[in-house]
């Protein structure tokens, strides 16, 4: 990493822009910020590093006026301030870009940026506002059409719109909450360039992240939080990756060790896909002529940058999207176009991406969510009448065996954290059936390290029980850790299938980014 070269290296000016001292914030049952000190200087990228739930976002929400701290003081440019709402923060030049974009998709870029802007006349001169935006955007090397509807923009462009909203309101302290989580690697690089450009102009940027490599590659200083406390604050040039990882999780992260089973004797195919093509939402082929086989007792990982047809492939296999042509053979039976319920009965279980959105009904209780899969079967129902006792019993088993942290099975499923939702979905799928094939789409995305490890163990356990597992992941480390074989998807095609033993991050990385088949890449 050539971080010395791209960073300015000048020492931060002695007077801090923001000083947060002794910040305490308590939520019911959680001490989210425990006596936190945090300082932001002019012209620095300050990485705020920590796992999910470490208290990073809470701290920044306090600085942005969304939460009021229980105690502690905040000074902005030396002046003590009370921040009651984001409007107060914006007046002081503090702006925040949240993880989920807060934009109006039906409106244009310029309308989004200047909504209720104080310089807006009663009949705004849109033309001049548009050229002002174009100028600002080109300053950062962005190609953004001010008249485009936001709904049609890529995540990277939407983020630029969010930044523009802050910039036209004169923000010079920018808080970015996990800004790379929705970006492609190329967009991420571009964002980092933007961040460096901003600090050159004297602005300050806080990068909230849980990714070590990001913090190291773009920041001037790093603060690590764990369990609501600051455990380390140091200039980036004076800290090593080992120190950071110890600070983050409390133990050393080892290099990626494969947990593959190793060579098996006879191989029994459970899923055979041939010449499968699937249409995407926009009316272009998202999956092109895919051939793929999953065997019993293996984890086949589909690696690739998201948006290369993985979701559409998974949806075709799980019956959520009608394939255009081709065959999908599950255990000897062509299931192309079969309904999700029929597939479940045939032994296919599915862990959807974004479990909280697609895997549960948040308004229903835990046991009702468990019921959804089994409601038509004895002993859970008879003659159309649901037998709640047996469902509650099963739900209790799911909660204990899969360690879903809930006060009771009657709790609302939507009140669970991401890791608990994922364990609930896994538990439901595995307790209520004996799957032959498990399709898992991004099963650990957004989970903290402990929850991720639990999900991984469950998947490995299933593999040992001879279940075939087809898993989609963007996280190369995870792919390398869990897979027996790896299929790389690019542009809707499988560009190569390799054994875990043949894989390295370099080979996979080049296949994922350029679609070069393995023979050419090696």
């Amino acid at each position, binding site marked *: 990493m050539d971080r010395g070269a791209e960073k300015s290296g000048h020492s931060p000016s002695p007077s801090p822009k923001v000083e947060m001292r002794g910040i305490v914030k308590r939520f019911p049952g959680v001490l989210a910020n425990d006596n936190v000190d945090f300082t932001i200087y002019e012209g620095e990228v300050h990485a705020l590093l920590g796992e999910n739930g470490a208290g990073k976002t809470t701290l920044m929400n306090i600085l942005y006026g969304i939460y009021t701290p229980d105690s502690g003081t905040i000074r902005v440019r030396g002046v003590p301030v009370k921040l009651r709402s984001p409007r107060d923060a914006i007046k002081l030049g503090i702006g925040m870009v949240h993880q989920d974009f807060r934009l109006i998709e039906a409106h244009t870029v310029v309308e989004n940026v200047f909504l209720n802007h104080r310089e807006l006349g*009663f009949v*705004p001169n849109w033309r001049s506002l548009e050229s002002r935006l174009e100028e600002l955007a080109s300053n950062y090397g962005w190609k953004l059409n001010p008249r485009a509807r936001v709904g049609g923009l890529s995540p990277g462009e939407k983020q630029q719109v969010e930044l523009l909203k802050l910039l036209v309101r004169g923000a010079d302290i920018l808080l970015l909450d996990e800004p790379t989580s929705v970006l492609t690697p190329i967009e991420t690089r571009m964002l980092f360039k933007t961040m460096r450009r901003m600090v050159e102009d004297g602005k300050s940027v806080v990068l909230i992240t849980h990714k070590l490599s990001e913090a190291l590659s773009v920041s001037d200083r790093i603060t690590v939080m764990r369990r609501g406390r600051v455990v380390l604050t140091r200039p980036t040039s004076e800290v090593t990756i080992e120190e950071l990882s110890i600070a983050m999780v409390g133990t050393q992260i080892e290099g990626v060790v494969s947990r593959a089973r190793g060579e098996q004797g006879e191989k029994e195919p459970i899923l055979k896909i041939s010449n499968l093509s699937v249409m995407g939402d926009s009316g272009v082929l998202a999956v092109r002529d895919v051939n793929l086989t999953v065997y019993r007792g293996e984890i086949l990982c589909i690696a690739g940058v998201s948006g290369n047809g993985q979701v559409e492939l998974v949806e075709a296999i799980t019956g959520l999207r009608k394939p255009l042509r081709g065959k999908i053979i599950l255990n000897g039976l062509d299931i192309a176009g079969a309904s999700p319920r029929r597939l479940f009965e045939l032994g296919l279980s599915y862990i959807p991406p974004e479990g909280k959105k697609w895997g549960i009904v948040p308004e229903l209780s835990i046991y009702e969510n468990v019921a959804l899969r089994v409601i038509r079967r004895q002993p859970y129902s008879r003659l159309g009448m649901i037998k709640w006792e047996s469902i509650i019993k099963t739900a209790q088993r799911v909660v204990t065996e899969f360690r879903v942290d809930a006060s009771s099975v009657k709790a609302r499923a939507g009140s669970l954290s991401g890791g608990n939702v994922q364990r609930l979905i896994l538990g439901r799928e595995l307790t209520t059936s004996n799957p032959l094939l498990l399709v898992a789409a991004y099963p650990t995305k957004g989970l903290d390290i402990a929850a991720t490890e639990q999900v991984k163990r469950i998947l490995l356990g299933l593999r040992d029980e001879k279940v075939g597992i087809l898993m989609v992941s963007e996280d190369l480390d995870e792919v390398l850790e869990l897979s027996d074989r790896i299929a790389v998807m690019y542009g809707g095609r499988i560009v190569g299938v390799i054994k875990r033993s043949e894989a390295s991050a370099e080979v996979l990385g080049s296949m994922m980014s350029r679609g070069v088949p393995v023979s050419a890449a090696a």
Partner: protein
Amino acid sequence: MTFEAFSIAEAILASAISAGTIYLIASVGECFTERAGVINLGLEGIMAMGAITSFLVTLAYGHLVAILSAALIGGLLGLLHAFLTVSLRLNQIAVGLAITWLGLGLSGFMGAPEVARDLLRALNPNVPSHLAELKQAPRLPDLRLGPLAETPIIGRAFFSQNVLVYAGVALAILLWFVLFKTKWGLSLRSVGENPALADSAGVNIYLVRYLAVMVGSALAGVAGAYLYIGYQPFWVEDLTRSRGFIALSLVILASWSPLRAIAAAYLFGGVEALQFRIPLRGFGAETPQLVMMLPYVITILTLIAISLASRGRIPAPAALGKPYSREE
């Protein structure tokens, strides 16, 4: 073309514009309301209240006061709607329907001969109160726009109508301008798309929604007044005949644009004009019910066509029908 064909075309066009104006005024107002994220199913009842108000007040004080009173009554019913749906966050469908039944019932009661007579006496004791029992009020006079009114075929339709017909078009243009060209309009549309975001940008959600509902309702009241004093100045119960609901569906046909609402409203005015012409040609003379169905059948057909054309993705304001509360 023969002279007869000319004069028929002229008459149909003229009555299309004059019937279309009922829809125009109501649906332009509803476009405005819905752009702020509130759907007002009370249009029908508010129109009925506007009509009965205009009937009584015209007799008492003349046309201008009648139109203003109808707007006021509409605005007050809008205030009630907004209080229930915006402040108390009640279901907009339920509240709207309740206001429709309230308006229909109350206007029917107010129009009953004895009640109308007493109301008229209370409004203006100097007017002979038995006038109310005749159920008739003077019609709004037509304004002939000079020589333009003599233009063949279109002259009568576009340049020789009463003041509310012209006002309808002017309102559509005005509200379109406010919605799409001004700072207020941007704020209002943002409230209809994403109230939480508009709130954090400093827009006063409650004020915007109250005003949007009240403006839309006031216009529905004016549409009712026009229906009576500008279109059919003889009071019968159920004068509105579901025109409020048709105006609601025209908002979809116009895809929430007041300018497109002009075309949509006149199109339906044409359907209504034909509905009275067809029996004259012999068809359906004995079974007028069949022909009277026409506007409703066309409404359903156009809604199906819109849905098919937009592949099920009708570009409604994203927060339409959803109450907003700040604490998530």
